[in-house]
């Protein structure tokens, strides 16, 4: 299956802008992980008076669209203020790149999250914001899961109504994802993404993600511990 990229994606993939890193950066952030197959690190120079991003560089581990979205992210962030970056929407990158295939939309979310994380880190070092302890509750988890993209549609799983149930009990989080209308071959991917997102919250000790598949109510639990999040979802029954 060939992945059809726009000419602009190919352009930024083959000629990425602002590659590398800034020594002694004013802010730095990494999003993603090697296990997931995509990761971006941004380093920034920020003018302390105007809050303008004067220089930005990226390093990328990931597919062609990961490299292209990271490159485009640096292009749109350069010259903008930290406050402007905090308002960026992932759609902006996809638009500037002449569109991304649905299955690659998560790359633009990753890039924007990287920029926002760097912006926030800068504000923290400047004493503008404090490190906030995010509480574990239905609202914060739902907000976080907004960033998980259904690879089939390129839309957020929350916006598509796939998050059918969230229960928080202290540090224990239970999430139920409904695959209704989504090909179940994406179930493993969505489960991994959801688990990784929730796992990133400090307040979480235990996660259970239940995938409700299309035909029958067949549950596939991801049992408790954090360590189990890397399950490939491949057949392991014996």
């Amino acid at each position, binding site marked *: *299956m060939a*992945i059809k990229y726009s000419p602009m994606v*190919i352009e930024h*993939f*083959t000629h*990425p802008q602002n*590659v*590398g890193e800034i020594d002694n950066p004013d802010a730095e952030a*990494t999003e*993603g*992980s*090697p*296990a*997931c*197959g*995509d*990761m*971006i*690190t941004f380093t920034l120079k920020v003018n302390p008076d105007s809050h303008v991003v004067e220089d930005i560089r*990226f*390093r*990328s*581990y*990931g*597919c*062609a669209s*990961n*490299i292209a979205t990271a490159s485009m992210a640096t292009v749109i962030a350069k010259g903008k203020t930290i406050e402007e970056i905090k308002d960026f929407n992932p759609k902006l990158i996809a638009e500037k790149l002449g569109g991304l295939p649905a*299955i690659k939309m998560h790359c633009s979310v990753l890039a924007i999250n990287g920029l926002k994380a760097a912006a926030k880190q800068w504000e923290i070092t400047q004493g503008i914001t404090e490190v906030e302890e995010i509480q574990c509750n239905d609202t914060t988890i739902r907000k976080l899961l907004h960033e998980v993209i259904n*690879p089939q549609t390129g839309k957020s799983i929350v916006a598509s109504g796939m998050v059918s149930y969230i229960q928080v009990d202290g540090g224990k989080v239970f999430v139920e994802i409904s695959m209704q209308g989504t090909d179940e*071959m*994406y179930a*493993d*991917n969505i489960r*991994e993404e959801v688990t990784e997102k929730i796992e990133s919250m400090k307040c979480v000790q235990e996660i259970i993600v239940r995938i409700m598949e299309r035909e029958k109510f067949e549950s596939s639990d991801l049992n408790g*511990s954090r*360590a*189990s*999040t*890397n*399950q*490939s*979802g*491949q*057949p*392991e*029954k*014996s």
Partner: protein
Amino acid sequence: MNDKPIYFDNNDTTPMLEPVFEAMKPYFIEKFGNPASLHEYGAEAEDAVNAARASLAEHIGATPEEIIFTGGATEANNLAILGAARGASEKKRHIITTKIEHNAVLNPVKRLEKEGFSVTYLNVDKEGFIDPDELKRAIRPETLLFSVIHGNHEIGTIQDLQSLGDICRENGVLMHTDAAQSFSKVPIKVQTTPVDLISVNAHKLHGPKGIGFLYIRKGTRIVKIMEGAPQEQNLRPGTENVPAIIGFAEAARIAFDGMVDDTAYMASLRDRLIDQLIQIPHTHLNGPRGSNRLPTNADITFKYIEGEAILMHLSIRGVYVSSGSACSSKSLTPSSVLTAIGLKHEDAHGSIRFSFSKLNTPKEVDVAVEKVKEVVALLRSMTAFIPELHSEVEGKGQTFYKKKKEER
């Protein structure tokens, strides 16, 4: 030299040979008959199909009646697995397969699992081999079928069908093998190899797409999985794809005629590529070396970079390959074959499969090696996955990388 792309994706599909195309041509317009028709056109088509069937059967030492034409190896696998299951007694509700199967075996098996069959997925060792003792231990009184891929489509491992088949036979278990990659590369003779069902297709050996066959050993109970007219001994309804069958037989004839020389030649290309690429630091071969590897296949992990990006860069440079990375798969999960041989996700993401045909040349290998070196260096120069910054963490049953806590 960059005019024509270097095609190293022959485990995916191969270009059809001119003589194969020529052999097929008359069966589109002049000899267009339906083998089921009673008139002369029908007889002409039927004779051609039967001659092709006999010729194909001979390559594996089968009789023509044991060959059922299908729309490819996927359909042959479905007919073998679902057909055997539907024809089995209520007591035979257990199937054994492996963790390195192609989806065309894995998914029919999973369907049966949903329908109430129990399934054992055998582990493989680091090179992708099944341990015959593990098969022995997995067999139960209710075991119906063992299905195993002969030559692996990703890592090239060739299973020892003889010893696995002996175990099946001793225990009254049917054995199926998916030989899509190995047919015409690794000999199988059904007189000596104890296998009951073999799936094969044409487009991996310079034949047309959309045609394959299932060998069904005489006396093996298979129930058809599609309904229609009683073609193919009432096991596979639908008018035979006559031109494709003719092309299939011609492609196989050419492949088997040249088998000894061609497989040695392809193995030399494979080893020429492997020897050069594993010189690159942080690079390793997946699957075995030597005669237990498909002559057509090399699969290599380039650590710290991602396969789809490698593939795209090579494609732009005129070298066509495939990748086991999650990003190159539609389901966004890394290749289950690579994780089954113990690769960490991040190493599976950085894997590239190079696969050869007899049409490739040593010169192409050398050019491709230079391009690969260039691309690997380029992507590594910009990667965010820096081993010094990522420590290995023991997870549940596997090791994976996590970014070290940023406490600095």
